[in-house]
């Protein structure tokens, strides 16, 4: 079923545009598409079907994302909207688009680096206490060493205050030059 009697390709383009406008409730400078959680938009037998994936398993924003998608697509004329959860490939910060990373930086949030360089699971961490156990995720006893640039003054002299921040996806940092605190979307 298409919106207002549109043919399927037009309806699909319309649905993709509507879904593409929906932003993350906690990072409103990012669309769900740029965040990499919008996996699929299609026109099915029973209206629009959208697939999204959670960033973190417990992220409470997921319910809001679903409601916002339904709301936006209904406003675009689609009466039947189904949002399904796609768990097949776990989300990683590598799925954030370059445009999304730029939007984060423009809004004073440090964007994540590539997964595998700084974060835990690859073994290439340069934290002082890194230990690699055969076949297992290494334990990182030292602070995670990331090259994090202060989004306000550009200094690379930054220190992690906490690996956990105001939302599940962010770590808290402080710039040692301008002394401002800022958030870093941590690699996962």
């Amino acid at each position: 079923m298409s919106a207002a009697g549109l043919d399927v390709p037009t309806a699909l383009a319309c649905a993709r545009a509507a879904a593409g406008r929906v932003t993350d409730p906690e990072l409103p400078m990012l669309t769900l598409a740029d965040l990499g959680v919008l996996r699929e938009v299609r026109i099915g037998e029973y209206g629009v079907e959208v697939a999204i994936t959670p960033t973190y398993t417990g992220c409470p924003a997921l319910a809001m994302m679903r409601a916002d998608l339904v709301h936006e697509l209904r406003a675009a004329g689609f009466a039947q909207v189904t949002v399904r959860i796609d768990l097949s490939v776990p989300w990683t910060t590598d799925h954030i688009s370059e445009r999304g990373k730029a939007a984060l930086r423009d809004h004073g949030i440090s964007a994540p680096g590539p997964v595998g360089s700084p974060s835990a699971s690859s073994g290439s961490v340069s934290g002082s206490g890194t230990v690699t156990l055969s076949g297992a995720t290494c334990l990182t006893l030292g602070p995670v060493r990331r090259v994090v640039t202060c989004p306000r003054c550009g200094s690379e002299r930054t220190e992690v205050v906490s690996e956990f921040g105001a939302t599940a996806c962010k770590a808290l940092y402080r710039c040692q030059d301008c002394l401002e605190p800022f958030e870093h979307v941590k690699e996962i």
Partner: protein
Amino acid sequence: MAQIHTHEAGANDSAYDGLVVDDARWAFGAGEEFEQGGEPLAGVDTAVPDGADPADLAAYCLMLGDDALVMSHRLSEWCSRAPDLEEDIALANIALDLLGQARLLLARAAAADPRIVPDGPLPGCSTSAEDALAFFRKEQQLRNVRLVELPRGDFGETMARLLVFSAYRLALFERLAASRDRVLAAIAAKGVKELTYHRDFAARWFVTLAQGTAESRHRLLDGLQGLLPFLPELFATHEVEAAVTAADVGVDPSTLAPAVEAVLREACSAADVPAPTITPESTGPRAAGRAGRHTDALGPMLAEMQVVARAHPRGKW
């Protein structure tokens, strides 16, 4: 559909005025958009793999889900009580990750075998399966290991427990990611990344407290000492765990001891404290919590966790 009001700027605005402009967002859960939105496995293929028994798979998902649910509740008890704001937020974040894992696992359990879902308190109440499992089971019906239900100790005890628990769960999930059950495999693959952060957080505090003051060191070690009787249970194989392992959908916990011991050895070495050894045949009944035999601490914890749902059985959130 919830109404959207547009805020008009005025001279008497306070900083909070902007918060109430969007009823759809703030009347959370009230709109019809949320009716389909609550299910954590909406649209996921939950068919049970060939050769796996649905009842065993459901019971196994309850075990892993209850570990996360109960640990999450104990950690959330720290909210507003941690030594500083950063640690308060970190513990709440970790509790939230575990609650998310619990939701998926309880939902997966219910999808594998709907018979495990208890009746709600009132006929005709539309309680979701995950809520019914979390809020309307009695303590004997929970399948968590007893380690997670022990009363919250001080910060040292909590860091010792979080280190042991996250080392155990990470080792388990690393193997579970290869499960033939694609839902369990996906939950585990995602959980590995979250648990890595939890384990690193606990291990760093473990070292910091051990090498801090005499007071912080003895509190940490006292906390660890109190947990030791509950470690063998983590590696005791319940018959359900044996069955799902044989069907290649679950993990035999007895195989996890070397990996967990290696992590504890590493942390203890950096902390300069003696590493605990895990001997499965030592104290404690085997598979106690997995069989529904719990300590006295679980009942009062559930009473607090479940009181709102039981008092407002028609409530929605």
